[in-house]
């Protein structure tokens, strides 16, 4: 299940080549509890896909069925300024979202170095490397990933781009709209990627 980008480190050269071929990349994110990857109607289920490869589901959702619409930090979606005024994933102006380095957050690996400790299940406390933050996540969180390219700027899917975060380009990125579009179109484009995301085990799962 684990792909190259999940287990290894990429050199800049590899990342550049992958980018120049325009292949779609990587990426995993953590989702949780009732935020399955599924969606209803046009809206994404769940909120922002924080960090790259993981996505937590609760046990009840492990059958992969669509669940409720959500826009939080664990689901396939984004939060606007109306949903998280202090730190929105995207800013919607007159119903429109601009392309750029913002949007659904993702990380390159389901490793403690790339994911914030509050999105790593607490049951892995003690297995993490000191200094990477003590796991404080929901124990039901599971991890999803999509793509196997380098963690570098490229097209991600129809109407969607992947951009790295300039502040932390090797650890954090965004899935953003490719063009100016409505919020609903952006969320729909994210929702369509549902089948691209596959469940991956947490790196510490085998030890637990």
């Amino acid at each position, binding site marked *: 299940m684990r792909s190259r980008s999940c287990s290894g480190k990429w050199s800049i050269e590899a990342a550049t080549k992958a980018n120049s071929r325009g292949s779609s990349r990587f990426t995993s994110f953590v989702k949780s*509890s009732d935020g399955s990857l599924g969606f209803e109607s046009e809206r994404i289920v769940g909120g922002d896909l924080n960090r790259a490869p993981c996505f937590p589901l609760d046990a009840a959702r492990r059958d992969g069925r669509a669940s409720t619409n959500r826009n939080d*930090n664990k689901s396939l979606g984004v939060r606007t300024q109306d949903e998280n005024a202090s730190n929105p994933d995207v800013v919607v102006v007159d119903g429109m979202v601009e392309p750029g380095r913002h949007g659904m957050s993702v990380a390159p690996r389901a490793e403690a170095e790339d994911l914030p400790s*509050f999105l790593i299940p*607490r049951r892995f406390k003690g297995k993490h490397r000191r200094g*990477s933050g003590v796991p*404080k996540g929901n124990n039901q969180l599971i991890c999803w990933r999509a793509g196997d390219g380098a963690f570098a700027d490229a097209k991600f899917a129809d109407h969607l781009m992947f951009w790295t975060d300039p502040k*932390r380009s090797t*650890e954090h990125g965004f899935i953003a709209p490719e063009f100016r579009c409505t919020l609903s179109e952006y969320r729909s484009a994210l929702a369509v990627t549902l089948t691209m995301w596959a469940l991956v085990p947490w790196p510490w799962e085998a030890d637990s």
Partner: protein
Amino acid sequence: MTKPIDYRVYPPERAFSILLLQLNETIESGHGDNPEADAIRDEMSGYWNSFTKEQCQRMNWLSEDLADLARGGPTIVHTSSDAINKWKEALNLALAEKEQGKHDDFLAVLRSPAKTELPPSELLFLQARAWDDAGFPEVAIQFLKAAEKQDLTTGIHVLNKLQREGYVEEAVQKANSLLRDRSSDPLAVYFASAVLLGSVRHLDFNNARPTLEHITEPLRKCFQGFSANHPVEAEVPGFKASMGHILGLCLEWLGQTEAAIKVYDQILALYPNNPDTLTMRGLARWVVDHELAFADLWRAIQHNTKSPWPYILLSREYLGSNNLQAVSLCNQGLNLKPAPSDVAKALLYEGIAIGYAELGQPADRVLENFYLAIDLDPHGELIRENLNTYLSKTGNYKKQPLAQAKLMSLSIIQSSTSQFLGQNRYRPEKTNEDRILRSLAA
């Protein structure tokens, strides 16, 4: 810890740290997988996504430090004498960096301590100071509370921090417990009394009374027993005066004016020219002995009081008889640094307006000052009445009641206390930190 105000008003790292503390509390209460905890994480992720790599690392270490704290503090890792010396060396280097505003190295050194003579409570205290200096006061409070469990004298620093950061409810609780504790030192009694007095200053007498009575007894004992040779007095000249001001005010408020005046007398015997004490005694004497009160307030002005009330009260005395002097006093009051409160400034402008009116100055000059006064204190009924008096040319201006000045003398205490606790005069946490670091260096 009760959140004082919306964490979103704070810088992102501090806001994140508050959320992390809330998440820890939620997890500890057994609700780590509940929607409540998820909502906190949701907020945290918004901040996290905006952080730089350095900020993320700092937050990761914060999470580690808090986990260590839950286990009783950092584990000692260096024990050989060589390692201890190297650790001290690293501490000194990190300390120099800290002075430049770089806190991460200092925190890192404290995180891997050597076995020294340093008691665990002092190590926790240093960690508290380091996180505080780095901009995380809520985290500092957690470390201070842990230090207090091992050394009760740290309670004063917990109180000080809670008060400064606006955690009023908790500060009042802590102040009450410090006052109840008979082993509390004079500094702790003083701080606790100041916090409690501040918490009731807007209440009416009946509601304030229990607190005033609670403060008075331990404070009186401390004040009477406090020797001028006490180490605190050497460190903070004027400490006994500050303690006496609070005691005197409580006594006055409780109706024991004579007892209050005796306290002020005692202070003035030690510090004859203390302008705050002169002001307070002047206000206390105003109804008992007008002449003596007048003399005290004049002396307060001569000794550069920062309180506007001597200027306000004396200028009112001169209005009608020596208007030039009255206007001059009001102008001096307006030029005080720090600037008086709006209510006090309003009264000073009103004094100028009345003085000008009595001196027969042009109406626009008189009205300008009345309007400035009304702008500063829109609820000042007497100012409006005096304006109407001027407009109707009856010339029978009313004086502000003494009660208002009495009430405002609370602000003298408040300003004296905040100056005392403030950065310019005495910072007990800084003093303690210096002491610990000196002992380490030795």
